[in-house]
């Protein structure tokens, strides 16, 4: 734990040491971590595999962009608007949750994939949201990596705090009971429908805020970049790699995976997705519990 705190202190200090290259690298590390925490709140705790989780990232980005365009004149730090992005994502999850969370197993995964594709197509046909042109934001916001970086840190800490709370609360016990056996959970008094929707709404919020923050950083939002299926997969793999349904899994998985991606992109260009695919297969075949699972098993054997 001590080393972890040391690492965090180091990471927070990065933007103040003047290397924006390192800052932006850590931005993407943070993005992976936050998104892994986000999908972990749903998939990790309830076992519902969300293949369309990127829809919340995208909705958050678009909602934030609309807020920025409408209210940039207020002069507040634009990253504040990303909260609205998160709320919009949550609202969408609330509306969608009741019908879609009735669907179980692989069908849920496919349905969420369908939802995210449909939303993406609908947005790119909505002129008010830029349609095919996407939404450029450079005219409204200054490029401010430090604010973005701090926002991501706040978001990560919030996601960790919420995960910590959920893991140790009545709510979290209920969610894990749903993951283990939904029917048994219901009979034991867990209001499964309410709990599932609540987890969905909560997890959507973090993806939504992250989408908003990145929308502002990249200064341009389009459906191609913000609704891509591969982003969902990155979230899932980061969560799986760390160990799903755990407190530290997303942190570790997000860290390892983002550095892995960065390294492959910089040093073995073009092979990065191939390497990802191979890792994914090996992970499922040989390390289904993730890094945290292995560590835990080790310690149990030792202790």
């Amino acid at each position, binding site marked *: 734990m001590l080393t972890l705190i040391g690492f965090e202190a180091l990471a927070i200090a990065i933007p103040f040491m003047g290397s924006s290259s390192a800052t932006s690298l850590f931005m993407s590390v943070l993005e992976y971590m936050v998104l892994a925490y986000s999908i972990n709140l749903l998939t990790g705790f309830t076992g519902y595999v969300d293949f369309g989780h990127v829809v919340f990232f995208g909705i958050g980005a678009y909602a934030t962009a609309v807020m920025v365009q409408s209210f940039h004149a207020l002069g507040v730090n634009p990253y504040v608007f990303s909260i609205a992005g998160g709320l919009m994502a949550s609202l969408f999850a609330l509306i969608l949750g009741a019908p879609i969370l009735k669907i179980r197993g692989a069908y849920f995964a496919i349905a969420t994939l369908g939802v995210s594709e449909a939303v993406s197509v609908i947005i790119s046909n909505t002129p008010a949201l830029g349609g095919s042109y996407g939404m450029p934001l450079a005219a409204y916001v200054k490029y401010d990596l430090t604010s973005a970086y701090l926002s991501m840190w706040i978001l990560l800490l919030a996601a960790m705090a919420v995960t910590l709370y959920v893991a140790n*609360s*009545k709510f979290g016990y209920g969610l894990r009971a749903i993951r283990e056996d939904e029917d048994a959970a219901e*009979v*034991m*008094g867990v209001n499964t429908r309410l709990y599932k929707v609540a987890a969905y709404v909560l997890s959507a919020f973090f993806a939504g805020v992250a989408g908003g923050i990145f929308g502002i950083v990249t200064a341009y939002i389009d459906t191609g970049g913000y609704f891509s299926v591969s982003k969902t997969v990155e979230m899932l793999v980061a969560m799986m790699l760390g160990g799903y349904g755990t407190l530290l899994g997303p942190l570790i998985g997000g860290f390892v995976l983002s550095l892995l991606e960065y390294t492959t992109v910089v040093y073995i260009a073009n092979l990065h997705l191939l390497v990802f695919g191979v890792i994914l297969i090996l992970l499922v075949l040989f390390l289904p519990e993730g890094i945290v699972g292995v560590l835990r098993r080790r310690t149990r054997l030792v202790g």
Partner: protein
Amino acid sequence: MATGIILEAKDVVKRFGGLEALRGVSVEVGREEILGLVGPNGSGKTVFFNVVTGVYKPEGGRIIFKGRDITGLPPHAIARMGIGRTFQVPKPFSAMSVRDNVMIGALFGKHGAKNPYEAAKVVDEVLELTGLAGKADLQAGLLNVPEKRRLEMARALASRPELLLLDEVLAGLTPTEIDEALGMIRSFRKELGLAVIMVEHVMRAVMNISDRIVVFNAGRKIAEGSPSEVANDQAVIEAYLGAPITGGGRE
């Protein structure tokens, strides 16, 4: 010992497609009573449990619990009113620890605790009562059968039920383990003052522990009474041993 009625099922009918699983059964359970529910495979015992706990909605009849009509309420609501149950095939939350399994019972049952800290006391009590305290930190999936059965009961007890439905909790146990389990069920009644319905095939045990026995066959109640009355009932013997069928034959 029966001081009033806690559960009253009236003319319950449950169909699956064309199949009638329950054809209008009525069962009453008194407070602090142990009721044995027996009958051949497919006679509707587990379906009856599922109707009482709200997993299935009956096509006809009413379920009255503590004077309130609970027919058609969702399972979690019924559980919170004070009906706990175990499953025929144990359904422990296998990846979770024994303590966490019991914790879920304590959090979501009647007077469910607000958070795990508040529930901890109940959990410890129940683990003690069911003899699982020593295994509290083990993963539930790693328990052996008798322990899994006990865990099922512990989880149900932690929800502080007033009525406990036990579905074949003795299946697969050795005679010694059965005796232990029976002792435990008696102590539940004594210490927690709850009523129990036991679906059971191990007849020796049911006859031994029940205050009263209800016999189902093919979705109907065919007998009701004290253990000895039921054991000498011709209809029951036929249902179990199969009537010595004579005559008829092929055309």
